[in-house]
């Protein structure tokens, strides 16, 4: 499963060869550095640890500084592991966006935008209670009954209610890669990607 860490730049659109307007997301993907290689013999599983987005040494703890020094790279802000990477890479190798090519289908993982405390209509797609007429009021976005008074006389576990919404890890599957600009470390994918601009996203093909 090859993959790369990136940063969401933003969305825009363009016209393709057939004249259709295509909405797309720009991702600054890589370059990532291999900061550790985990093997079956030592770690019990095979994986590659990638680092992305350089940060200053003074903002890095001593143990981490040494960890990055082993790979011979400046400290990285985002460090993630990719199981069974597939590509032969050595410690300190750079991985850039050209491991993917135009037309590839990829999965993209990001943390969705936080929405704060939301009601059930926004959070779970409830439709509110009843209508606006027949003397009803104040019930347009209400969750309705929770648990009956005689039976079950309690609220079932896991009942969907209001609460914190968004800010969850979301994976979007089968996004097609429209364009790749390897010299700019830029990847353009079709449609949207979870998270605000500037947030980290993981691009991988683990179908």
């Amino acid at each position, binding site marked *: 499963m090859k993959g790369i860490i990136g940063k969401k*730049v*933003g969305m*825009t*659109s*363009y*016209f393709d060869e057939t*004249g259709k*307007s295509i909405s797309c997301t*720009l991702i*600054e993907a890589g370059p990532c550095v291999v900061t550790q290689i985990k093997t079956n013999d030592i770690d019990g599983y095979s994986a590659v640890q990638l680092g992305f987005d350089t940060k200053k040494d003074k903002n890095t703890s001593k143990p981490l500084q040494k960890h990055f020094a082993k790979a011979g790279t400046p400290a990285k802000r985002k460090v993630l592991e990719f199981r069974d990477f597939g590509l032969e890479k050595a410690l300190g190798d750079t991985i850039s966006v050209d491991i993917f090519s135009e037309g590839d289908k990829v999965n993209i993982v990001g943390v969705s935008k936080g929405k704060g405390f939301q009601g059930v209509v926004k959070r779970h797609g409830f439709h509110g209670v009843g209508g606006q007429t027949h003397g009803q009021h104040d019930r347009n976005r209400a969750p309705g009954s929770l648990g009956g008074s005689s039976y079950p006389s309690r609220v079932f576990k896991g009942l969907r209610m209001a609460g914190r919404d968004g800010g969850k890890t979301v994976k979007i599957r089968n996004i097609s890669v429209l*364009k790749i*600009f390897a010299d*700019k470390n*830029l990847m*353009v994918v079709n449609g949207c990607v979870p998270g605000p601009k500037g947030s980290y996203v993981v691009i991988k093909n683990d179908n």
Partner: protein
Amino acid sequence: MDAIKFFHQEVTQKKDYPAFRAGDNVTVNYKILEGTKERIQAYRGEVIQRKGQGATQTFTVRKISNGVGVERVFPLFSPSIDSIDINKHGKVRRARIYYIRDLKGKKARIKEKRMPTATAEVADKG
């Protein structure tokens, strides 16, 4: 932001349209696909607004068709636009002339801005 600008430069074809702004009377020659045949339809009206930046700019053209106001939004870099002709430069004070929607008849006219012609400029200098 720079990455988006770069991307726009990469994917948009350069178009040579004359400069126009809100209040101008333009004819947009728009390509329409009928089955397999392509023909060009002219849409003439006043530009109400220009919106957006980079490759995703749009402009809105309003006309009165059979007594009904019609507004159409064109993406500036749409490959379906064959050409844009300017018929008149309008004299308006704002960039978005939404107020024209509420006006009827003689009030809805836009004063024409007379551009100094090339010969007039030469005469001034001489």
